[in-house]
């Protein structure tokens, strides 16, 4: 068979597509990222904050946006759709249709003058129609690629933008293009679409001005939104005092919407309520809900905080309708509380709208030849959650089912791993590595600084007197060359710059233009191509932080620009050439834990050609899955387990260490050494923690006292072994949240509701006449599992709610167990005589997690689950590089979620293992041994524990000093700022460099 094509096409550029692309491109594959819209970023770019950390969505996402946009092995193809596909896994020919942007992607500098001057206004979709944009626009200010686009439908064709665009980027006559691309595998990540709430006409969306969708409200909250973060009523501009969130609009709604639960709405509503209140204290948020589904890691705490700290009011009731007061435009919300209809007036209503399958789902399915499920999401298996029905095509993110950002990101990584699997043998075949000329040695040279001042079209030039700045720059010390450019970032100017660097023998280069955040890498690249060390480059930001913010003070802006240039010149003279240090990578992985996640991770890495050491302390592989007897699916878990185990055992790349415990782990990314009990050592480059979890052993409800009280897992086991006769024991009660959502363990264990539903259905299957009671606090069958909950209800399973004030009381009775419970809705006491009582208990972390954490220097949550690097965007990474996480060790989760996460960990690990060596940014701390007296002040502030105190013999006496672990240091500089003796510094941000800037700023040379 021919070698597969070493390239992957990722369809859809939201957070999922970006993550898949980055993981693939970083592990040696060429990626074509195809996006329907003009820029990547997806729904996440529209969000203000993210739960449960209230992180600013844009802040955490922007670095990924930029990295995707600039990656040499990711080719962004925007405004494009798949037309058709040919071939099979390993070698697909994809035909794309690229729609015209009418602005040249190469020449557009994203300066935005076109949009400023465009006389035609259009509805801004990015802001959910709450404000206007122009007919030439970017989706949002941080768009990648930052290239404007002409909305042909809205454009009246006046031609003004063409005149205004000094880069000459406007191409009115651009036509559609057909592209044909060869790839080995495909990842689908088109995301989701919004439910149209006007279908639920009783809520008045589209008719009542003050009824908004949750996404509209999200934009309202955003600082870049229509009112810059002020929440106002569209009807009259007042800040709404009372805001009602109505949950499940289009979700859990078989009649007019989707039968499934959208999985994220409860949480985002909590977040919106909290943030709204943060923005304006006077706001009184109320959330109308059926079940509050705060099922994720630390979500329950967030829920509690919303109620206790933010004062969010929760009303458990389905809202029957919303009416508008025609005068005040206030809204009357009707709902049932304690059996009575209540009408309550609110100033604004927010509809928590469902996540629908993406609009293009059917077209994609048709054109690419994979199947959809009944909800028009991708049809995938419980044990193959990332595979579509067509080999070679994989799915990540919300297209596989509604989910939140961490789930999406983990899956996206997982899909990348699956996609890489197909083409692993062609790794590095299509990626390019940049070649650079030999670096000029500048160490002996006097500084020769060149300053390039940019007009940025008219963005700088119309405010700042650029020629004057150039003339001024020429007078500064060490400056041997200064000139101006219309657009310094344009291709031709870059070529010119290289020539000048060589002609003028420049050894320091300064560009005075825009922001180094966006443009420094570009200019550094130019320097490298000219043979100059890239760390000898500096920027002065005279646009974003000068001309644009002082547009009406031309003189002052010019003066400020001169100052900024002078400051940078002063720093520049003191810059050092720096080299990225490189560490070789041991191309094998250690996977800790031989459960489902660990085995999936191990075989995933092995399939990609990496050696894996799988360490399992039990005598047998399989972990918790061994206890699971049936699933919410036709798949037999035990049969699957066998397959998985044999796959691991048969793989020659997997070295099994069964019945082994780890004694210690040393080293760092690329080079770990692990010692097993018994002294065996393993060399490996990465670690995947898949230590799993254990079932909680309850103490309440007669557990352990009465043989008829058991946990769900125990029940499954007994049922399978035939120890339970459902014909006899036909009155069964289940109690949810036993040992979770309480003071000791505030969090929800995510899976127990679905497990209870699963077992209830099993009981009903075996004995349809059995009486099954499920006593619950909230039913949290999120996502497609909601369908099973509905099924259980339909089959007669009785769901009875209890709350913390009225927990069930279980007594051994004459007719089995006597359970009494006060029904909070009906306010009556319910008595159940049950033959069996099944307790839904949480998943707990492994008791020795702390030991593993200490060995690996990775943190744990308060619940002792492992704490990932970032709740949202790095769900399978640890802050410690080279160490990854998956499965129950991260938190409770289902089989498919564990597998997806394990695949995710594979993809993340592969980004390290695919490299021969890892580069370490040189802008990190460096110890000045002469100055350091070993006071150790710097050790505590270091967020990465990268500094250790050492002693060595110097001139016959003991010298104390500190040592920096280069691979752990990130260059934040907390050490430098703490050191009283200038004994440690950060390259490129040395104290003398910063002081030189201050001196230059203050004119005290």
């Amino acid at each position, binding site marked *: 068979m021919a070698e597969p094509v070493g390239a992957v096409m990722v369809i859809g550029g939201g957070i999922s597509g970006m993550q898949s692309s980055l993981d693939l491109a970083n592990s040696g594959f060429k990626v074509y990222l195809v996006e329907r819209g003009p820029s990547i970023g997806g729904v996440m770019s529209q969000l203000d904050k993210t739960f449960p950390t209230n992180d600013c969505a844009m*802040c955490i996402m922007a670095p990924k946006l930029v990295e995707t946009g600039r990656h040499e092995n990711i080719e962004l193809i925007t405004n494009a759709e798949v037309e058709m596909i040919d071939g099979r896994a390993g070698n697909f020919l994809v035909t794309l249709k690229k729609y015209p942007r009418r602005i040249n992607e190469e020449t557009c500098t994203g300066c935005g003058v076109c949009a400023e001057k465009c006389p035609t206004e259009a509805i801004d979709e990015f802001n959910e129609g709450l404000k206007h944009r122009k007919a030439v626009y970017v989706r949002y200010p941080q768009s990648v690629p930052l290239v404007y686009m002409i909305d042909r439908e809205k454009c009246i064709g006046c031609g003004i933008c063409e005149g205004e665009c000094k880069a000459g980027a406007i191409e009115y006559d651009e036509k559609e293009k057909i592209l044909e691309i060869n790839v080995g595998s495909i990842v689908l990540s088109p995301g989701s679409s919004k439910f149209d709430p006007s279908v639920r006409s009783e809520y008045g969306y589209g008719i009542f001005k003050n009824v908004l969708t949750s996404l509209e409200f999200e934009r309202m909250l955003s600082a870049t939104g229509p009112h810059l973060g002020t929440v106002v009523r569209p009807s009259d501009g007042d800040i709404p005092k009372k805001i009602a969130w109505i949950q499940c609009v289009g979700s859990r709604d078989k009649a007019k919407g989707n039968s499934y639960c959208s999985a994220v709405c409860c949480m985002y509503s909590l977040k919106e309520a909290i943030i709204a209140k943060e923005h304006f204290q006077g706001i009184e948020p109320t959330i109308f809900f059926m079940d509050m589904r705060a099922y994720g890691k630390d979500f329950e705490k967030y829920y509690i905080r919303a109620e206790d700290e933010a004062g969010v009011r929760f009303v458990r009731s389905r809202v029957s309708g919303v009416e508008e007061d025609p005068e005040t435009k206030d809204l009357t919300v009707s709902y049932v509380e304690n059996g009575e209809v209540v009408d309550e007036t609110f100033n604004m209503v927010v509809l928590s709208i469902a996540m629908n399958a993406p609009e293009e789902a059917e077209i994609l399915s048709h054109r690419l030849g994979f199947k959809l499920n009944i909800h028009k999401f991708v049809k995938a298996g419980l044990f193959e959650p990332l595979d579509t029905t067509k080999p070679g095509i994989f799915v990540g993110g919300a297209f596989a089912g509604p989910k939140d950002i961490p789930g999406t990101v983990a899956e996206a990584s997982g899909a990348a791993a699956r996609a890489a699997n197909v083409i692993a043998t062609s790794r590095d075949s299509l990626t390019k590595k940049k070649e650079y000329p030999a670096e000029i040695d500048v160490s002996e040279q006097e500084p020769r600084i060149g300053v390039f001042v940019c007009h940025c079209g008219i963005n700088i030039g119309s405010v700042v007197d650029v020629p004057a700045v150039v003339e001024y720059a020429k007078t500064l010390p060490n400056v041997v060359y200064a000139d101006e450019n219309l657009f310094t970032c344009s291709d031709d100017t870059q070529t010119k710059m290289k020539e000048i660097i060589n002609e003028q023998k420049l050894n320091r280069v300064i560009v005075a233009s825009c922001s180094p955040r966006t443009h420094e890498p570009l200019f550094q690249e130019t320097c490298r191509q000219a043979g100059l060390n890239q760390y000898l480059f500096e920027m002065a930001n005279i*646009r974003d932080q000068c001309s644009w913010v002082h*547009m009406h003070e031309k003189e002052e802006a010019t003066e400020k620009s001169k100052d900024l240039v002078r400051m940078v010149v002063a720093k520049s003279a003191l810059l050092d050439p720096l080299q990225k240090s490189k560490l070789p990578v041991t191309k094998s992985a250690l996977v800790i834990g031989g459960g489902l996640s660990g085995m999936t991770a191990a075989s995933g890495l092995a399939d990609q050609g990496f050696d894996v050491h799988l360490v399992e302390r039990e005598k047998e592989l399989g972990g918790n899955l061994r206890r699971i007897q049936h699933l919410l699916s036709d798949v037999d878990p035990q049969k699957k387990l066998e397959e998985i185990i044999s796959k691991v055992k048969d793989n020659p790349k997997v070295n099994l260490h069964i019945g082994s415990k780890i004694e210690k782990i040393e080293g760092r990314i690329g080079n770990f050494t692990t010692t097993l009990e018994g002294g065996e050592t393993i060399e490996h480059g990465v670690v995947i923690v898949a230590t799993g979890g254990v079932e909680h052993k309850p103490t309440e409800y007669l557990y352990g006292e009465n043989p008829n009280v058991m946990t769900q897992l125990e029940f499954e086991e007994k049922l399978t072994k035939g120890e339970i006769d459902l014909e006899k024991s036909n009155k069964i009660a289940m109690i949810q949240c036993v040992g979770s959502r309480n003071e000791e363990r505030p969090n929800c264990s995510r899976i127990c509701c679905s497990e209870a539903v699963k077992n209830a259905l099993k009981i009903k299957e075996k004995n349809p006449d059995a009486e099954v009671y499920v006593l619950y606090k909230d039913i949290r069958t999120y996502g497609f599992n909601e369908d099973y909950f509905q099924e259980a209800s339909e089959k007669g399973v009785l769901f009875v709610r209890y709350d913390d004030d009225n927990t069930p009381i279980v007594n051994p009775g004459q007719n089995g167990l006597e359970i009494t419970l006060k029904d909070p809705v009906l306010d009556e006491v319910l008595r159940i005589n049950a033959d069996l009582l099944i307790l839904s208990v949480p998943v707990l972390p492994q008791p020795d997690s702390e030991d593993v954490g200490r060995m690996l220097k990775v943190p744990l949550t308060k619940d002792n689950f492992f704490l990932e690097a970032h709740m949202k965007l790095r769900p399978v990474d640890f802050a410690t590089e080279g160490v990854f996480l998956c499965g129950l060790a991260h938190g409770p989760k289902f089989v498919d979620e564990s597998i997806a996460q394990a695949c995710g960990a594979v993809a993340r690990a592969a980004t390290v293992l695919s490299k021969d060596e890892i580069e370490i940014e040189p802008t990190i701390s460096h110890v000045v041994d002469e100055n350091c007296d070993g006071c150790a002040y710097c050790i505590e502030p270091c967020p*990465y524990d990268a500094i250790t105190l050492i002693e060595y013999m110097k001139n016959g006496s003991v010298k104390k000093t500190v040592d920096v672990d280069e691979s752990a240091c990130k260059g*934040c500089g907390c050490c*430098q700022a703490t050191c009283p003796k200038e004994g440690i510094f950060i390259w490129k941000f040395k104290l003398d460099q*910063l002081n030189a800037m201050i001196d230059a700023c203050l004119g005290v040379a």
Partner: protein
Amino acid sequence: MEEQEYEPLIVGFLCNWCSYAGADLAGTSRIQYPPNIRVIRVMCSGMVHPNLVINALTKGADGVLMCGCHPGDCHYLEGNLIAEKRAEAIDLMLEDFGLEPERFRLEWVSASEGDKFARVVKEMTDALKQLGPSPYKT
């Protein structure tokens, strides 16, 4: 500078990940603020040595503004919290140097708070105008 109105000079230390991005956003959004600040980009607010602040103030800067990520958002986990503690120390040092507390300010500015950055600069400029030039100004 002549007798007219005194224009304070503020040295700004902005962390690369949030506040510098926020200042850029002020530009992208064309939010206008007084041209009295000169920004020095640092990777983290935790990188700013107190000596740098004191140096600037004793060499004639009328004010120093330090901006970092909101607590919890720090790119380096907790550099900003360290900066916050350090700011307390700097406040104490100001007294020793005979400088008014208004001359040093620590603010959290996120990448989406262009307007906040502009507001902070304007407030600080106004406050420093009220206060008059730095006693260290020659």
